[in-house]
């Protein structure tokens, strides 16, 4: 099976072995993954809570969305790069883990979320000031749920046999 041999090849690379068997590399990359989640999550929370009208109501939506964007992007890059490295270390285990596939499905939905709501919510946040729309609220709730779901499914990977 080509997938099986691909996974085997990944695990036989020096990088994979180094992350998997080094005493420090795996937890350090895992630590970066968590810090990226916190940075991304904090920025996401500020935006979403503002869209829901639960926090920072006196600040313009556009201010928060625009200012948090570069940090959100940085957090995203840190999460994805560290995540790829962690996956590179043990692809065979992940391939068999149901939680991993749930996580990947949710991750794909993050992309769908961005595509669906970009036009109505995130591209021109200034128009949401004064009157936040139900579309913006929906976008905020879904993004919080996706983020929570990614954390739970990610954590469950360690508990799959």
């Amino acid at each position, binding site marked *: 099976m080509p997938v099986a041999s691909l996974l085997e090849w990944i695990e036989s690379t020096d990088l994979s072995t180094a992350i998997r068997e080094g*005493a420090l590399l*795996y*937890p*350090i990359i*895992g*630590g970066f993954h*968590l*810090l990226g*989640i*916190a*940075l*991304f*999550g*904090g*920025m996401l*929370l*500020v935006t979403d*809570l503002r869209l829901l009208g639960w*926090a*920072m109501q*006196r*600040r313009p939506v556009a*201010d928060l969305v625009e*200012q*948090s964007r*570069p*940090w959100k992007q940085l957090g995203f890059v840190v999460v994805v790069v560290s995540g790829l490295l962690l996956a590179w270390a043990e692809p065979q285990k992940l391939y068999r883990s149901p939680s991993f596939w749930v996580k990947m499905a949710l991750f794909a939905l993050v992309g769908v979320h961005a595509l669906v709501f970009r036009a109505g919510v995130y591209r021109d946040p200034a128009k949401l000031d004064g009157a936040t729309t139900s579309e913006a609220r929906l976008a905020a709730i879904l993004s919080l749920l996706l983020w*929570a779901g990614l*954390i*739970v499914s990610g*954590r*469950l990977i*360690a*508990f799959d046999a």
Partner: protein
Amino acid sequence: MPFFEWLTTSPWANLMNGPEWAFPVVESLHFMGFALSIGTIAIVDLRLLGIGMRRQTAAELATDLQRWTLAGFALMLITGPLMFSADAVRYHENPSFQFKMTCLMTALLFHFTLHRRATRAGTPALAARLAGGLSLLLWTAVVAGGRMIAFV
């Protein structure tokens, strides 16, 4: 230590050691708690450092985000001890756990004293930068120490 041994036999420890889903669920809530608190603290820190969120003052951000930071602390400080009680004897001997607790106590103390003062209007720029940088460093150490627990 008798106290830690007693902890591992407590009803909540039994819950944590009982159903298979208990530990991962509590651990996930722990992750959300620290993302909530450290994420919102990081926003204030980036402002203190002068590198992010500059359309607001640090004082405004700190006031706006305070209750979310506290909510994160609450979630973190409920779920953390729950996980600890599940295997208290081993955790308290774990060097990474001890490192994490030292950093956590320092970070919390710092957060509610010097860091809080640094967010006030009129703080000299250098003091604000130092407070922001130190805060990021301390919380990073807490997360890193926590991640290491499972590997020591």
